[in-house]
């Protein structure tokens, strides 16, 4: 193994300073790992965010911004400022150009998880991540007024099984003011994990949402509320009067803009129809800023890593001035001296970057499943791609350019020193 002389001298010299070289490599590796890791997480988060809902052509709500409509209807964040009437829902459902319509009612929570009122169609129509359908891990959809279906996370966190009896509270708090303890619901189905907000929802029929509120219309329980029994409620008219949103599928996708326009200009009620993918990417533009900020911060960390290469070279230079004179004496030229320092910098950067990239892949391999389970973010382990190559080359290139400064300095002083060794 006879390497060409100068590279092998550079390596031997580095090996002689291996502790500091190792620390420098570590700094570069960590900075590259951070940068690529943040980038990977960000794009994975964006992808799964954009794939929260699929197959729904329009989301219709009372007049509001498409962003807030998507926020409360899909992500269950916030509340609608106004509701859609049952009549408007029927109008939507009966339209020629509408294939299906699934109503969504919001309102209550169960131990911090949002209770969603909908119809059994929801389980057939709601799709995510490129067309995957909601499926039942166990049990079946709700059928009876007091049946409830749980998202995967709700069931796992609260330890519910099929047949568990639960009470649904009024209001959004974890511990509600007053529990509807005389209205027991029974778990009939538990959904498989989707990585979407569905995992965190408690799904009941629209009528159930109404039932929970019997006697509560004024906001506080009227004396009747405590007296009505579950069976009394069954006999009441439970037609919902306020829906939060309607998920709409079109008969033909090409009518999308025309249908949207027609809904937006509906005379009986002020409605807004949002195209989910558009609205969600608008939401991502807001949420994604945090990711961009993180990416910028980690780009600066790369700069710090590169500066640590420069520091290690500069700090070694004084003592190596003698080595330079010796090398000159045995026939090395000023160019060799420069090459020695620059190749050292590039070598440190390349090893550091390679380790950083390897770490990213190792981490996404190990932590990927954890992220998918806990946050619904799917991290794909793919072969190193253009981004990695780009970062690798940039880091090596910048290291080489930064090293020009000490290298030119060393070349100058080795020219000026002549053959004398400066102590």
């Amino acid at each position, binding site marked *: 193994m006879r390497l060409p002389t100068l590279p092998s001298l550079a390596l031997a010299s580095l090996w002689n300073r291996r502790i500091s070289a190792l620390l420098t490599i570590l700094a570069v590796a960590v900075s590259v790992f951070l940068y690529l890791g943040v980038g990977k997480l960000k794009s994975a988060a964006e992808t799964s965010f954009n794939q929260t809902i699929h197959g729904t052509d329009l989301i219709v709500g009372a007049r509001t911004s498409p962003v807030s409509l998507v926020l409360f209807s899909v992500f269950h964040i916030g509340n609608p400022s106004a509701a859609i009437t049952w009549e408007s829902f029927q109008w939507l459902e009966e339209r020629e150009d509408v294939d299906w319509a699934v109503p969504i009612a919001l309102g209550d929570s169960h131990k911090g998880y949002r209770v969603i009122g909908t119809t059994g169609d929801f389980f057939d129509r709601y799709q995510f991540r490129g067309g995957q359908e909601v499926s039942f891990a166990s049990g079946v959809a709700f059928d009876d007024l007091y049946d409830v279906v749980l998202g995967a996370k709700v069931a796992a966190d609260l330890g519910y099984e099929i047949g568990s009896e639960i009470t649904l509270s009024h209001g959004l708090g974890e511990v509600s003011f007053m529990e509807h303890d005389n209205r027991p619901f029974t778990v009939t189905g538990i959904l498989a994990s989707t990585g979407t907000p569905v995992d965190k929802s408690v799904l009941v029929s629209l009528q159930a949402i109404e039932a929970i509120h019997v006697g509560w219309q004024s906001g506080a329980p009227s004396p009747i509320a405590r007296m009505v029994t579950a069976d009394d409620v069954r006999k009441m008219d439970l037609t919902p009067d306020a829906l939060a949103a309607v998920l709409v599928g079109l008969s033909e996708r090409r009518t999308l803009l025309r249908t949207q326009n027609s809904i937006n200009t509906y005379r009986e009620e002020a409605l807004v129809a949002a195209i989910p993918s558009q609205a969600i990417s608008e939401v991502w533009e807001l949420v994604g800023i945090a990711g961009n900020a993180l990416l910028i911060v980690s780009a600066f960390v790369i700069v710090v890593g590169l500066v640590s290469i420069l520091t290690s070279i500069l700090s070694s230079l004084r003592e190596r001035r003698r080595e330079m004179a010796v090398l000159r004496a045995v026939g090395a*030229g000023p160019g060799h001296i420069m090459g020695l320092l620059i190749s050292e910098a590039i070598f440190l950067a390349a090893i550091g970057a390679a380790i950083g990239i390897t770490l990213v892949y190792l981490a996404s391999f190990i932590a990927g499943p954890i992220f998918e389970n806990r946050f619904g973010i799917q991290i794909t382990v793919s072969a190193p791609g253009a981004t990695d190559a780009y970062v690798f080359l940039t880091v090596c290139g910048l290291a080489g350019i930064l090293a020009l400064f000490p290298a030119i300095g060393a070349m100058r002083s080795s020219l000026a020193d002549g053959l004398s060794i400066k102590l």
Partner: protein
Amino acid sequence: MLLNLTDVEFAWPKREVFLKIDAFQINEGEQVFLRGPSGSGKSTLLGLIAGVLRPKAGSIAFGEVDLAKSSPRQCDKIRARDMGVVFQLFNLLPFLDLISNVSLPCRLSPERNKRLIDAGTTAEEEAHRLLRYLGLAREAEEKTPVSNLSVGQQQRVAAARALIGAPRLIIADEPTSALDTAIRDEFLKLLRDECAAANTALLFVSHDDHLASHFERVDSLVELNKARLQVA
């Protein structure tokens, strides 16, 4: 003739002429002691002869080539091929072992390496032989780190490095000034004997006049340098 300086003038950047040497020659295999007080320009002259510094005027003929007219790269090549340098101190690369330090010139100059191959040996073998000859067989064998050697031992390793591959000229810049008298004389004898054996010329520079008695030819830089005379 190996080295022939004629009408050489040298000035440090932005200074007036510091060295002016009308004629200075060294024959093949000749051993020359050049004395001069500190600051008289000994190291500067050696830099010129080694082709590391460039003269303002004049010619520095080394063998067949004029270093003053050669490119810096050519000078580096010639130095690697045909010269050996011993400094006063810090001659060795601390990150290489003894053998690698000694064989370094052969790695930088293929011609120098080839001379050894033609002579039926290799750079490593020759390094071992020289170190043995200079009394460092055990240190070479044990791969003693350079930093663990005494100053006298380090100077001997440096001499071995200068001598390897039979260069035509060895430039020694006060190589003994850090050594005590007994070791100094022994070192000088080893160096001179090995130079004589290889027919290598030796230009030995020192401010220490006691060493002059070891040499047949002794020159004085103060007398050689006409620049000083003009100033005075």
